[in-house]
């Protein structure tokens, strides 16, 4: 019979796995949004990027993806500072590379998913 602490740890591991998989999927979303930055839908794309990186900056440290916190904050700060789209695109692309590495490492460490 599992104790409350074990149940809690299992629940946290499940949430961590969910967060990692969602972040992995969001890497593709981020690249799609970057492609729209210099189009008429640029403002909307920038808002989309901001929403994802804001959530990532808050949750990465909590769910074991610490190395993503600073790159995510960097993108968020650039958007908040109304930086040119090139700078936002460059920082976001760099973040996507970090995401792919970090999530792959995390999923590999966690083992095969049920």
């Amino acid at each position, binding site marked *: 019979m599992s104790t409350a602490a074990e149940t809690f740890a299992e629940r*946290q591991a499940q949430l961590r796995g969910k*967060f990692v998989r*969602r972040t992995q999927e969001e890497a593709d979303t981020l690249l799609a949004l970057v492609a729209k930055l210099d189009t008429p839908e640029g403002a909307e794309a920038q808002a989309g990027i901001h929403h994802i990186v804001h959530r990532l900056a*808050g*949750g990465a440290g*909590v769910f074991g993806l610490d190395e993503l916190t600073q790159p995510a*904050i960097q993108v968020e700060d650039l958007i908040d500072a109304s930086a040119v789209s090139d700078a936002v695109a460059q920082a976001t692309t760099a973040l996507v590379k970090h995401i792919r590495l970090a999530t792959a490492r995390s999923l590999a460490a966690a083992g095969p998913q049920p």
Partner: protein
Amino acid sequence: MDGKRVAVVDDDPIFLEHVSTILAQYGGMRVIKLTNGDELFKTLDRQEISCIVLDYDLGNQTGLALGQSVQQKYADAPPIVMLTGQGSERTATKAFRIGFADYVSKRNLDQQELIAAIRGAIFQNDARQARVQETERLRQHQRQDSLTGLYSASYVAARLNEVATSRSGTGFTLMAIRIENFAELRLRIGHAASERVFRDFAKRLSDIKLDDGFIGHLATYDLVCVFERVMAPATISATCQRLAAEARFSASHEGSRVEIAARVSAAGFPEDGNDAHEVIRAALSGLDEPVKPKIPTDAAPAGVDKDLAGTTDDEMPPHKQRAHQRFRVLKKGKVVINGLNTVLDCSVRNVSESGAQIRVDGYFAAPSRFQLLIVGSGDPRWVVTRWQVGTDIGVQYQEPEL
């Protein structure tokens, strides 16, 4: 924190689940998971929430805006703890300015810091609520009235209720006291001067030495003398006379003298009401009664004391006025004629040591002699009719026949 419900609002379902699990596991809190403002308002309308944890970024609105809306809608809104990945000083300042209880960074969230912030917010809110309730309780039950320094109306009412509902209590007697014609006096000398007169009047009453009674405020300009026991009519009458005599004084106003006299009306529990409120009302209604009309000399029936006919107490010379002074005492009574062949209900309105004024429910010609039973005051006493005007009858006690 058992039983404390905490509402967590976050549009990120993963983080919402994470925070909720932590608060339940390590904080012992009952967590209600919500993803937007609408859900929060519905929850607040339905149940008591001890604390709200709000994420800053809720997609279509900020936690700051939502928190502000909550505080505007609910007077006793629960404390709010802001949780956000946006660790800027400006956001924190805004949150505190709006009145949020605390602010915790979502980045590298410290579980203990979040739990401590929620506990602190609940503790401070509970303490604040307790202070508000205590202030209200003190205000309600403030013993002393700020205008007169006497016991306050709320204290008097609470005390009388206590006595009326006490199992061991035998009852109480109260005498409502008002300055005669105070409304006219206010019109004549103005609000400020009449307030001074009222304070002086209250001071004179508070200086009276009462063995086991106390003076308090009953209504805006009505005072009361309370005895926590049932008193005999003669004692009530004597006390009323004493209160009226000692409260009488001359006030000066812009060089002229204003004569202040008291009107006193007594009532008691349980004779005059089933609870304190009814007894107070009975006493006050005695104060509201018009002054007894003059009795025309030629209309005075045979046997009526000619000294009384054609006068009111106030018009008598001082020595006579004193001798015939009457006080309103509302008690239930029965007029017993020819043994028990005829019994009529009446109210005993004024009592003195020598007689009383009674009022019967419907007109009847009072016999020259009958028995009067004052409910709760022992056996019936023989009385002789001294005067009758309509349903009001003045009677004089007759010494028992040997």
